[in-house]
Structure formats: C-alpha cells, structure tokens
C-alpha cells in the first residue's frame, strides 16, 4: 500500500536573521494523522523553525513542501494547506474577534464559522469577546481567537507555536480534545512547539528535541508509548536528553 503524501516535508532547512543562522540542517516529515511535538530550551530555534516553515522568514538553505507543494514556488497554494495560530500579540488589535475571523474566512473563501469540528465559539467561551476589540482582550482570549482563526476551513496541517500556553485549563483541555479528534481522523496533522511536557507526553505521536538550532533527539510513537507506561517516563526521557546535550557541550 502506498504511503500517503506527507503534509509537511522539510529537507536540509537552514534559516535565521540577517547572516546569522539560528536553525541548520533540519529534516522533518509529518504524515497525516501525526501530532508532532517540538521541544527545546529557550532560544533553541523552535519559533525560528516554525517561522521558516510558514514563510515568514527566508530560507538560507533547504526546501519546505506543504502537502507536496513547494513553499518557495507556490507560496499561496502552499499556505492554503496549513493553519498557523499567530502569537496573540501579532493579532490586529483594531479589529474585533468577529472581524478577525471574517478576515481569515474571506481569505480562505469559507464562512466565518466553518470549523472542521463544529462550533468553537461556545466551547472556547468566546461569545462575550466577539464584538470587542482584540486590543482589549487578555492574552488567553487572544490565543483562543488565534486558534479559532487557524482552524477555520479545516486546513490539513495545523502549526501552533506555544499556542496552548496562555489558555485556561478548560479551554486548553477542549482545544487539545479537538486537535486529537482531528489527528485521529487521519486527514490532519498538528505541529506543536511547547514547553509543556505533559501536553507532549499525553498527546504527541512524534517528538523532536531541538538544541542549538538542530534536531538533537527524535522519539517515535513506539518509544513514546513505552515511556507513557511508566510514571514520569516521558519526562525522564526528555531530561536525560537535555542532560546529555549539556554534558556534551
């Protein structure tokens, strides 16, 4: 049986700012039905990698294919394949939450409530914020609005850069449930960069550990499954990797 086309294929990626390389030699392959966790210390290059993958900074080397479409050759078509939850601070503060969702929907050519998992406003408790300026919303509410925008039209690949960090426990639980449901459906994949080991341990099917701008460790589904069977097993795996990296340095 043929393997499905990867939703994200990164080959030999190098990226940074100006002449400085922040990430170098990164290879990634994300299949549908995968939840990839991106771990790493502060400054390890997680956000830079995601910015390069989403076309916000120029690639210094390598190639990014999204749903088989080269981001460099057809950026608009490639961007149709993913939803990116932008940082709350980068949302347009002058618009209301509803206007923001209408803006995203108008670009994607769908309705402003076309989520792949049913209504999101109620589960994320966004009703009272819909007609308020984003600039007046809290960090958590902004993240909810950003996530709702990323999920509009149900793009196959969802890219979240520490997007679950500012959420309240209920919203975080609900959004993780929605993402898990989508991934288990087999047509979507999630790439999540986070420091929350518990989220990674309980949700991710693959994990990469980034250090000094390069992938230092990879754990696949079977290794993660084995680690989950022991109390604190995944945390021990990550800490061991971190300590090995530090002692090698």
């Amino acid at each position: 049986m043929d393997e499905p086309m990867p939703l994200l294929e990164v080959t030999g990626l190098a990226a940074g700012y100006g002449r400085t390389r922040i990430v170098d030699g990164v290879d990634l392959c994300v299949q549908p039905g995968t939840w990839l966790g991106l771990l790493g210390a502060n400054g390890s290059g997680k956000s830079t990698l995601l910015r390069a993958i989403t076309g916000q900074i120029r690639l210094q080397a390598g190639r990014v294919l999204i749903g088989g479409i080269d981001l460099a050759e057809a950026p608009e078509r490639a961007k149709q394949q993913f939803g990116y939850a932008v940082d709350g601070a980068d949302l347009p503060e002058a618009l209301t939450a509803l206007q923001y969702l209408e803006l995203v929907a108008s670009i994607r050519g769908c309705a402003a409530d076309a989520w792949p998992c049913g209504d999101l406003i109620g589960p994320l408790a966004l009703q009272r914020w819909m007609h308020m300026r984003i600039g007046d919303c809290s960090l958590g509410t902004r993240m909810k609005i950003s996530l709702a925008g990323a999920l509009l039209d149900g793009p196959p690949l969802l890219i979240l850069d520490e997007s679950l960090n500012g959420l309240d426990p209920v919203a975080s639980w609900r959004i993780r449930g929605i993402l898990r449901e989508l991934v288990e459906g087999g047509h979507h994949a999630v790439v999540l960069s986070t420091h929350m080991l518990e989220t990674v341990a309980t949700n991710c099917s693959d994990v990469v550990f980034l250090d000094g701008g390069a992938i230092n460790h990879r754990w696949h589904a079977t290794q993660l499954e084995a680690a989950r069977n022991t109390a604190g097993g995944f945390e021990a795996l990550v800490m061991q990797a971190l300590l090995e990296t530090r002692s090698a340095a």
Partner: protein
Amino acid sequence: MLLTAGGLLLLIYNAVSLYQALAQAAPTIRALWPRVALGGIAVVLLVGILCGRLCARWARRQAQAPWLAVLPWQAAARARAVRVACLAIGGVLMPLPAFCGWGVSHAVAASGQAWAATSLAVCFMLAFVTAALPGAHHASEEEQLAQPDARPLKPALAWRLVAWLDQWAPRWTGLWAQGDSGGKLSVWWFGSLVIAGGSAAALSQSQSWTSPSVISAVIGGNLAYIAGLRGSPLLSPVLRTSPVSFAVVWAAMARGPLALSLLWFGIAALPAFVVSLGAWRPSLGGFGVLLLLNLLYSTAAAITPTSRRQALLMYGFALYAILYQGVHYGVAYGALVGVAELGLVAFLWRRARQRFRVHG
C-alpha cells in the same frame, strides 16, 4: 542599507544643487542680505520650535513607557530625564542650522560667515529649548493614563462612508490598517480639504478658469489618499502566513483611500466641467497626475509600512526632485527624472513584495 545610501546620496545631491543655485543668485541675495538674514532667522526659529515640541513629546512618551511606569520613579526625576534627553538631542541637532548658515553665506560670498553660522545655531537652540523644556513638566500621571493606545477605535465619518469597500476579501483590512497606526481619517483634515476645494471651485466660477479647480482636485485627492493609506498589515504574520498575495493585500488596503481620493477629485474637478463643458482635457490630465502621485505615495508607504513620517519624507523628496529638475532644467529633464523615479518605484515595489512573500 541601499535605501539609506540612496537617501544620503539624494540629500548630498540636493545640497550641492541648492548651493549652486544660491551661488548663481548671489548678487541678488547680497543686495537683499538684511531681509534674507532676517528671513533665515525666522525660519530657523520656527524649525527650532517645531523640533523642540516634537522632541519633548517623543521624550515624554519614552519616559512613560509601560515598563518604566511600573517602577518607583518620581515625577520630578522623570521630568528631569526628559529635559536631559531634549537638551542632548538639541545639542546634536544644533550643528545643522550652523552648517546651513555657513553654507548659504559661503555660497553668496557674504561677509561674516562665522557670525551667520553661530547666530543661526544660537537661534535654533533658543527656540528648541523654549519649546521643549516646558513640555518636560507635563510628564504627569494623567498623561500616562491617557496613552493613545488605550483609546477605542472610532472610525472617522469620512472613513465610515467607504467602509463598505472593506466587505470584500480580505475583509476589514482597511479598518485594521487605520486602527493599527492609532490614526484615523481626521474629519478636520477632510474638512480643510473640502474648504480648499470649495475655494478653488468658487475661484474657477468667478474667473471662468479651470486650472485652480483641477489643481485643487489633484492636490486634495492626493492628500485624501495620503491621509487614508497605511501599510502596517503588510508586516503582520496574520496575512503573511495566509494564502493571499501581496497585490491582493495591497489592493485591499488602498481601495478605501483611493475611493476617497477619486471622490474628492470628482467633487473638486466638477467646476471645470461646469465652467466649460469642453474643458475635459485638463481634468483628464489632472486625473492621470493624481493616479501617478497616489502610486508614488503607495510605494513610499509599502516600503516603510510602519512609519508614516518616513513614507511622507520619501514621497516629499521624490516629488521635490521631479519639481526641482522640471523647474530648473525644463519639463523634459523633469520628465526624465520622473521616468527614472518610476524605475525606482518598480524596484521598491519588488522589494516590498519580496518582504511580504519572503520566498520567490
């Protein structure tokens, strides 16, 4: 880097041109020297006051930044820091009027070049300090609470008139662009444009002359465009990670201001038709000039999307270069510079598009 070097070259070129023009007109200027000197001092005093006020406002804002506001910093100490900052900036700017004074007197071979330089520097600093220092005392808590960012967006009346254009994809981009900069299409500005247009129209009517009407239509239309256009969404990750092209985003931001600009042109150019139904050529020419001016400002706004002042400066310099060359070396030479600038416009558009798209 390229833009800075280009701007610097343009500045040097203009300074040299100005020096040559002054040298050519030296006998006339020397004959009118007392008046020229008084005029120069008046201009320097005005510029000093303007710079002082701007500098004080800027320094006060810095002193009231959120990260400083939470520190136990006394109001008197804050005001002192603002004063020191203003004095330091004034000191840095002071050589500029001195250099101008020396340059002018040297160009026209007037006596007392050192005196001209010193007196202009002293006048500038006096005006600067007079305008800046009282402003430093206003660094109060009230001002701190009244930061413009905290105000809810209230789109101006003129903007609301064309808000329906924002309904097309990508929706609300114009409103976003207006709100992000904290600016809005000021009713005051729009009102002044209407008054200017009305006066020109009245003049056209009374003189049976079409030019004032067309000129005011072009200038007013361009000002309306400049007042409405802001390019800040071009840098946002929201749009840069969305499946939308640079051209579409740009069109979405420009459609509201362009509609206002054309509306203004239509209203102000109408007297030209009323006065003489056959006078469609000046209006058509004016319409073409308006589109070119709007394109020129669009380029400046696209290349400096976060700074309106930089965009205005870039636009002003470009316009000045065309007019200066046209007036001094003839229309053909001005047109040549205009064509060269169109090439520069194309290059800058490409740069702005590359920054938006990153790839390709």
